[in-house]
């Protein structure tokens, strides 16, 4: 298990990445055994498969014009599934916008996710999910919210942690700095996870920072930091578990750089061939987290992979029906524009709404 000793051995400054499985799913260290049970591993694999299936289908719904935009998760799923395994009901999840599997683990329904990306705020209501903030579009701005949630945890003597996500590009924003600093000074239980997928839209890491890696940035705040192979589910799981345990011991924030690659486009309106090479894509395709876990499962005979097609078919049905549920969501009403701005609708908003409704009445409903 990743422990204090591993932390000392993986000093961010030395640029050593914590990794347990090789690209072809073999333990890097002889005799290594996963700290997860076989059932847990199989479940993780299934979850990963589910995320991947849902993600690919989301992209295709968008291509069919049934969803207005969508940011693919392809290639980054191990980070999300590992988070889902470690995060507890009482923990907060503070997303950026590319952590599908973690959202699902937190109880957000696919229907809601689809609804959101179809363009309805109702999709961020998260009826079943506890303690998860909505997607944060302004890059890195959510990280300071996480520090505030952490303060509330301490203030209320709650034994819980906050998992806050950001991308590599997001580390350039001032709010990344302020969040890490507040979290450290206040000693709050926040686990910052940077999904370093090598690009911020078209901008590569090398134009985003000159630091040897992103984990090293934790030194500026005296926050323990590790560089982890984000495509290695086991490695991610161990480090996340360690970080959470540390937080529960009152040791404050933790920074994880999860090294990964966005195998898809930035969003469905992006064309990655403009800014990256086929070689780069192939290099990373070999590190695919799904493939890697699958090899491990195969080698250790944990699961009869011949069932996979059936499983995927089942998932697809489920995903389709979630999407249809999103499509069948009641029409977006004028009321919805006004009703949630304040706890009680102020007269001024009623007035503006009335004027518009009067117009609609007079025009026979034509907008």
């Amino acid at each position, binding site marked *: 298990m990743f422990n204090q000793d591993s932390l000392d051995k993986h000093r961010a400054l030395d640029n050593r990445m914590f990794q347990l499985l090789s690209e072809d799913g073999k333990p890097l260290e002889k005799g290594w055994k996963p700290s997860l049970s076989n059932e847990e591993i199989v479940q993780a694999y299934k979850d990963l498969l589910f995320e991947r299936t849902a993600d690919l289908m989301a992209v295709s719904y968008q291509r069919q014009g049934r969803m207005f935009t969508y940011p693919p998760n392809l290639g980054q799923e191990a980070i999300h599934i590992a988070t889902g395994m470690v995060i507890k009901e009482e923990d907060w999840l503070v997303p950026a916008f590319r952590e599908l599997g973690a959202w699902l683990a937190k109880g957000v329904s696919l229907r809601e996710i689809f609804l959101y990306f179809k363009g309805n705020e109702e999709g961020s209501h998260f009826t079943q999910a506890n303690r998860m903030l909505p997607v944060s579009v302004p890059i890195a701005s959510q990280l300071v919210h996480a520090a505030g949630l952490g303060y509330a945890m301490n203030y209320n003597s709650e034994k819980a942690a906050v998992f806050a996500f950001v991308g590599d590009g997001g580390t350039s924003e001032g709010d990344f700095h302020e969040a890490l600093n507040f979290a450290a000074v206040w000693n709050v239980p926040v686990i910052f996870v940077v999904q370093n997928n090598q690009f911020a839209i078209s901008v590569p890491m090398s134009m985003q920072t000159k630091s040897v890696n992103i984990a090293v940035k934790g030194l500026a705040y005296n926050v323990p930091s590790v560089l982890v192979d984000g495509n290695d589910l086991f490695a991610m799981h161990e480090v996340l578990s360690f970080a959470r345990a540390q937080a529960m011991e009152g040791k404050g924030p933790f920074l994880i750089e999860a090294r990964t690659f966005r195998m898809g486009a930035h969003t469905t309106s992006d064309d990655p061939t403009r800014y990256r090479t086929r070689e780069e894509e192939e290099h990373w395709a070999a590190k695919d987290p799904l493939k890697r876990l699958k090899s491990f499962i195969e080698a250790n005979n944990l699961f009869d992979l011949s069932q996979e097609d059936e499983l995927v078919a089942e998932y697809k049905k489920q995903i389709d029906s979630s999407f249809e549920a999103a499509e069948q969501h009641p029409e977006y009403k004028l009321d919805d524009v006004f009703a949630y701005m304040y706890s009680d609708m*102020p007269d001024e908003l009623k007035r503006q709404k009335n004027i518009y409704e009067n117009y609609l009445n007079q025009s026979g409903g034509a907008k």
Partner: protein
Amino acid sequence: MKVMNMVNAINDALDLMLTADPGVVVYGEDVGVEGGVFRVTEGLQLKHGVQRVFDSPLAESGIAGTALGMAVAGMKPVIEMQFDGFVYPAMNQILSHIARFRNRTRGKFSAPLVIRIPYGGGINALEHHSESPEAYFGHTPGLKVVIPSTPYDAKGLLIAAIEDPDPVIYLEPKRIYRAIKQEVPEEKYSIPLGKAKVLNSGEQLTLIAYGAMIREAQKAIAMAKQNGFSVELIDLRSIWPIDRDTVRESVRKTGRVLIVTEAPQSYGPAAELMAVINEEAFLNLEAPPTRLTGFDTVIPLPLGEKHYLITPQRIYHEIDKLIRY
């Protein structure tokens, strides 16, 4: 009742709310040990402890953004921006998140927090210490924006702001922090947000102002009275929402209106009031609604402020012109 200036009244409101609601925390730069650079939070840390009244690192985006996090978790943060000009680094958090969290999550989460900001000119300060940023907030859907002009209102409005389930920008006219003393009840009371107050009733002209301009307006009205003019004074108190009822009723009666604000003119607070008056009382107007505002310039450093700040004489001049129109 106790005689209080505005600093005392705000301090008292914070003290009462810290006592009444265990979720309330008060933080910002120098608000703890120091008690704030204006001493508004003096004594509160000693009384309520460092978990509830504390200094934050020097970072306004962090202050505002963490407050949102706390509010979402059920707390009631009351944060301070040390001066008006230092709220700008927090604009992204305020405009993009604090104002929108309720709407974004369809009511699942909200951001019941208060941002206190000493604002306005007239205190001989360095650059960025004399700004009037209320229009930026008034133009931002999802916020309520409040400005008191007396110790009594300061206390009641701040208590209401803290109790309000939505985020409130609470601007404190620092120029009159200690200028006005008043009997203020010692107990907790609140004044509803969104309601203007008629401070002086009159027949010939409606003067609309708020914050530190109220005192200047009152001096001008005294001059006007000596000259036989009857002026109605509305203290707007709430920048958003605007109390259209009070404004309408007054302007329909007087037919003439002067709006006095210190902020720069273009796209400023007075423009919105003129629009409201056009919408609410156009047919009653006997003279063009008129604004007396700051210039479209940076507010000058102290030696130049005399050219910028609005005096009772200038207000009176406009009153006179309008009534004779």
